[in-house]
């Protein structure tokens, strides 16, 4: 079992905060205020496009592709969310089609830290230092956004939001050391559960990609990575989630991101510059199967994501060196 560096792409002049991949395309967000698109198909790794960098006045913190489309959402410290896409109706004869700014969404009081599209593409979630999570409903073109709900139960900034891969279930991670789960109830959204246990800011979480079980992995400033399991709904309609396991302790500093692969591996990255990959031995028992030191030389790693290109599983990391590193993982 090993991790092998396939390609290191120096894309940004400053911290690379976030990556998202969809349909063979990778988007990256950085403190240099730029968003870049890179082609992953055929392991080509060529820079395709640089989106208009006059759009955001501060760091771009997070990017997310809308499923089944080429629409991209980007959240920025300038408190806005930009929406990008291609005019699908324009003729393809002109060759390559430029990505255009479709909309700017305003609403958050200050830094937007996370954006995420639901699997259905109906909803966009965003979170901010203003302690709130917003749920937006988008039209098909991705041009009109209506705010359905402003969720304000977190007591501190909300660092990250992620949707379940098949349900309208949202997880938000916060500086208040908790993860909250949100679901739709009649016409509104409500908090379904609070996951308490981390002893520091929760930076990121990700759902298990499984139809048979409902679990979430979270990572924190407390250097731990934890797996939480949905048990049942109690008589008040609240979901009961329990801590299933604390993954083997490897990281020596804050863990900034986790990603759960479709085939069941969890990858984590953080301030100590390590990539760690865990596998489940038996139900609820995890072990480390691969580690990579100095994965971005001496720099911190902010983001990690599994993606599949053709028949190849890739792991993508982004760091303070402004690089997106693309790794093979051979189980």
């Amino acid at each position, binding site marked *: 079992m090993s991790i092998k560096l396939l390609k290191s792409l120096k894309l940004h002049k400053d911290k690379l905060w976030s990556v998202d991949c969809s349909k063979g395309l990778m988007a990256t967000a950085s403190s240099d205020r730029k968003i870049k698109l890179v082609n992953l198909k055929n392991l080509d790794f060529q820079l395709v496009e640089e989106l208009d960098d006059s759009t955001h006045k501060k760091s771009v913190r997070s990017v997310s592709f809308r499923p089944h489309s080429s629409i991209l959402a980007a959240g920025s410290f300038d408190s806005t969310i930009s929406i990008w896409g291609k005019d699908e109706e324009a003729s393809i004869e002109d060759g390559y089609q430029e990505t255009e700014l479709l909309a700017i969404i305003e609403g958050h009081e200050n830094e937007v*830290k996370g954006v995420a599209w639901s699997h259905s593409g109906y909803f966009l979630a965003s979170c901010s230092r203003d302690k709130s999570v917003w749920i937006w409903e988008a039209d098909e073109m991705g041009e009109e956004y209506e705010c359905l709900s402003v969720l304000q139960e977190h007591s501190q*900034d909300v660092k990250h939001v992620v949707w379940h891969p098949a349900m309208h279930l949202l997880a938000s991670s916060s500086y208040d050391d908790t993860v909250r789960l949100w679901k739709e109830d009649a016409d509104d959204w409500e908090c379904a559960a609070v996951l308490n246990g981390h002893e520091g800011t929760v930076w990121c979480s990700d759902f298990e990609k499984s139809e048979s079980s409902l679990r979430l992995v979270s990572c924190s400033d407390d250097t731990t990575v934890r797996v939480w399991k949905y048990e049942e709904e109690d008589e008040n309609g609240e979901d009961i989630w329990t801590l299933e396991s604390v993954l083997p302790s490897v990281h020596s500093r804050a863990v900034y991101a986790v990603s759960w692969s479709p085939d069941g591996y969890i990858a984590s990255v953080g301030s100590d510059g390590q990539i760690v990959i865990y596998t489940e031995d038996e139900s609820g028992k995890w072990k480390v199967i691969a580690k990579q030191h100095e994965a971005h030389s001496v720099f911190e790693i902010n983001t990690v994501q599994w993606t599949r290109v053709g028949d190849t599983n890739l792991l993508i990391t982004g760091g303070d060196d402004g690089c997106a590193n693309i790794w093979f993982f051979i189980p």
Partner: protein
Amino acid sequence: MSEFINENPDILDENLLPSRKEEEGDAFQDEALNTVNLLRRKRLLKIHQTTACKVYRNVELIDRLKAQEMALDQVPDLTASETEESDEGEPEDPIDAQEIYDMIAHISDPEHPLTLGQLAVVNLPDIEVSESNDKSKISEVLVKITPTITHCSLATLIGLGIRVRLERSLPSRYRITILLKEGSHQSENQVNKQLNDKERVAAACENDQLLGVVSKMLSTCK
């Protein structure tokens, strides 16, 4: 400045702050002080009770200028060695606590016309460096700061100034942790959490107003 959060901080004499012995130009110059100068300073101190007063400062400056003049006469090539900037210096030199101290002790306090070293907000014994010999590995720096009063609302700003200074001065392999010294502040945990949250620090550094204040604090760094 109208209202101070701390009206009466204790102040250390800049010359008494810890510094590297072999590079101690100041000590050398102070040795050149003659007894008359010393007596004059002592008398001034009796009147004002503090080394912060203007007259004392001016006298001290004049003394040092004089001493420098004398030194120049004795060591003709002093200017040459002084202009030699450490910019292109040997990158092999390990960084120690004294070097970190020198980087941050001259940061100005946001409310007093004094440095963090003079106010004993930063102190040499409260700096730890765990240096890896291998330059391709991560090294760590821990700085514990002591606000002048336990309810100092500027503690976060001071910590931010120190962090910005160190991030700009140290190579990327250093992970910087800034903590309030145990028991030195009533909202210790809250301030510590904020000072070590990379995202909040990054956002603060994009806030022009805040960055202006920090730049002003850093303008006195040598």
